């Protein structure tokens, strides 16, 4: 069953076509990886789906409901969670409070929301840090905070922007495990990822973008052997 259908989605900033005619589908419970070189339009695509940027035209169906042009709070209210590439924790509040604010989407009772939040914090393995202010946490921990906060709204679809970006090598495996744990809970995931090994490992299908256009969409294997992808993305990695 399809949870998300994107058709001919476009958005231009001035003369630059950040996203042009992008179409793809995501199956419920699966992981879609989005890849592409810097400036390919990955984060723009996330902003279009989650309502942070208004699309120019196209169609976005979430659970067969048109969410094109809705505001971010409406879209997240329908069960679309997200994390941010440039992290946005509520810095002057504790980890627990951060996650509680997410939990309030589904739970009005403060104590129940607190307990829900604690379970999610345990899930992301940060229970001992619950009373630390977000600004006191390391980058890796703040990534987990954002994942926990997004999970707290009990999303059906979760968009994660570069979970493993900007953290040191030994932090990465834990974060990858966490994404897998989330998938095992049945959450549909769309993730932007620069590390090609990780994306091959966790994704059921992959969307490859380059200069705002879709250049390939398919299983990891198909993507790995796609000439356009190799030229646009993998090639440049090898060169570097």
């Amino acid at each position, binding site marked *: 069953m399809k949870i998300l259908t994107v058709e001919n989605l476009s958005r231009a900033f001035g003369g630059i076509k950040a996203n042009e005619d992008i179409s793809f589908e995501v199956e419920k419970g699966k992981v879609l990886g989005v890849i592409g070189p810097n400036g390919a339009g990955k984060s723009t695509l996330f902003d279009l789906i989650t309502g942070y940027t208004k699309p120019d035209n196209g169609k976005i169906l979430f659970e067969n409901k048109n969410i094109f042009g809705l505001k971010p709070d409406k879209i997240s209210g329908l069960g679309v969670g997200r994390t941010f590439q440039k992290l946005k*924790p509520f810095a002057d509040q504790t980890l627990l*409070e951060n996650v509680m604010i997410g939990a309030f989407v589904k739970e009005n009772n403060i104590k129940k929301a607190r307990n829900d939040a604690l379970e999610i914090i345990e899930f992301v393995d940060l229970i001992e840090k619950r*009373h630390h202010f977000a600004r006191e946490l390391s980058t890796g921990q703040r990534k987990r905070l954002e994942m926990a906060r997004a999970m707290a709204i009990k999303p059906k679809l979760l968009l994660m922007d570069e979970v493993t970006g900007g953290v040191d090598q030994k932090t990465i495996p834990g974060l990858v495990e966490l994404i897998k744990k989330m998938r095992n809970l049945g959450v549909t995931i769309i993730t932007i990822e620069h590390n090609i090994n990780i994306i091959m490992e966790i994704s059921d299908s992959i969307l490859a973008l380059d200069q705002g256009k879709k250049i390939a969409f398919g299983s990891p294997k198909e993507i790995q052997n796609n000439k356009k992808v190799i030229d646009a993305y993998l090639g440049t990695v090898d060169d570097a």
Partner: protein
Amino acid sequence: MNKLDIAKSEPLWNTNKNIIYIISFVLMFLIALPLFGLNSFYLHLFIMIFMHAVMAQSWNVIAGFSGQISLGHGAFFGIGAYSSSFFFVQYGISPWVSIFIGMFFSAIVAVLIGIPMLRLSGHYFAIATLLIGISFQVVFQRWELVGAASGLWVPLTQGDSWSSLQFHSSKAPYYYIFLFFLVISFFAVWLLNRSKIGFRLRAVRDDAQAASSLSISVSNYKIIAFVISAMIMAPMGSLFGQYILIIDPDRMFNIEISIIVLLITVLGGIGNIWGPLIGAAILIPISEYSRIYLGGTGGAVDLIFYGLILMIICIFRPEGLISFVPKDILERKKQR
């Protein structure tokens, strides 16, 4: 017990019991104080402290807890003062009832100016509110129905009257009325802070984009904060009108009101519920004494002094004076 169960068994709030004892003691002291025969100057001083603490708390709700710096908050003070006096003067409605009318009008105005203005952010919002605050004064100076520049004169009652909220023989009843509103307002804000709305307002303050990813309508919550803030401010205008019994635009819509609530809050500690009280308890005596010793010219010297205090606080103690109070008096030790 595993770590999760331990965490779940923790109390929901980390308030230290000490704070409850401190509040009870201070409150009992304040209730008893007039009984020791405080003269009318000191009663006036305390009344001004109570009033300004509530006014500053109103500003704290919009600025400290939801991150919108309003520089025209005096408008809601004036609206409160004018609504209650107007309905008393014109229709003989008891001030006790018209206080609520003032709150209602303030809330309406907060929504009407909030909808377009809260789309502005940061400096633009501050500038816009500054101008709104001034424009209210200009409008009321010319509005004949409410007495234009000469304002409204509340008809005096024969002797003291609780129903008309006028006391001529002693300031003590005003003292208790303002104290009562202080307690109610602070309790309301304390409850707000612990509510779902309070959590969401802090989310909007800290990061609006992240908040909207959690199904929080940023503009709605800003308006909610604006309305709550206005409804705390308005009764102070109403009561102050009953206290001085002359309601004129120069006093009730004075730009100084908008500035002093900011100063008090920043001095005491912005974003902290006790900040406005501490700020008012320190700044108001300074202001009243400087008025006595410097006479009519004191006004301007006041402002220079306020500016100095503000600079010192911003440079050396941006968290305000409340940050000098040891954390463990306010909070229970957390397991970390």
